[in-house]
């Protein structure tokens, strides 16, 4: 029996009373933990999608404004060589 012991063995430990256990009863705690576990990822997911949508919208606005700028600037650069020929 020189091997290391696998378990902590308690002999004749007193059993807790019904009242002692009742003190630990807390269903609201379980429910709030459940809410925390199940709801938070949803909120996070919603927030992530919202931020992604904002980034996409911003990128689209930037793209549109750049496109508009290009369209405004393009005829001038294209027409210059034509004008010189004439």
């Amino acid at each position: 029996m020189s091997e290391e012991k696998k378990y902590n063995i308690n002999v004749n430990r007193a059993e807790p009373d019904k009242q002692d256990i009742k003190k630990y009863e807390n269903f609201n705690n379980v429910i709030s933990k459940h809410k925390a576990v199940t709801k938070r990822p949803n909120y996070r997911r919603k927030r992530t999608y919202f931020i992604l949508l904002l980034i996409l919208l911003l990128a689209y606005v930037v793209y549109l404004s750049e496109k508009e700028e290009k369209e405004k600037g393009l005829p001038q650069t294209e027409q210059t060589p034509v004008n010189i020929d004439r």
Partner: protein
Amino acid sequence: MLSVFKKNNRTPHTEQELIELSKTDKRYFAPIYERYHEQIFRFVYKRMSSMDEANDITSQVFLKTLLNLPKYKHTGAPFVSWVYRIALNEVNQYYRDKKKKRTININDFDIKHIIKDAEMTHDYQLQDKMIETLNELDEIKVLLLEMRYFEKRSFKEIASILNITESNAKVKVYRLLEELKKKLSTSQNV
């Protein structure tokens, strides 16, 4: 119209009804929690060293029960067996995470019962040897002894908690008693 209203507003009575309702509204789980809290707490406390640890694990057990409730299907076995199985997993997970030695709580009386079932004659030396021998057993064997002798569960209960057949539970316990008898008799001869 009134009858429909009454039907919808009637309070659910059966456990099965409450379980089904809890799948969509968790508040319906409260009576089930109240009904089983004490026995699950005792089950966990038997395997823990303190009440606070047992409380943490017990609330974790009920949280896991709630989270897995949509997957629960009534197979004829009592609902509480399913909760016990979750409790067992949680206790095992706790010891795996903490890398602590598992706690076993036993009584002199229960040891006498094992010795009697192993068809050996009781004496205090043998009782001490039996406690020492527990340290040589695997987790599943300790679990069987705990449930059968320290918690005095029927083979039917043990079977439904471990998700095995009743006859399989009986065979496992009797084989374990044989093994204990062999171990004790060899240590007695040495």
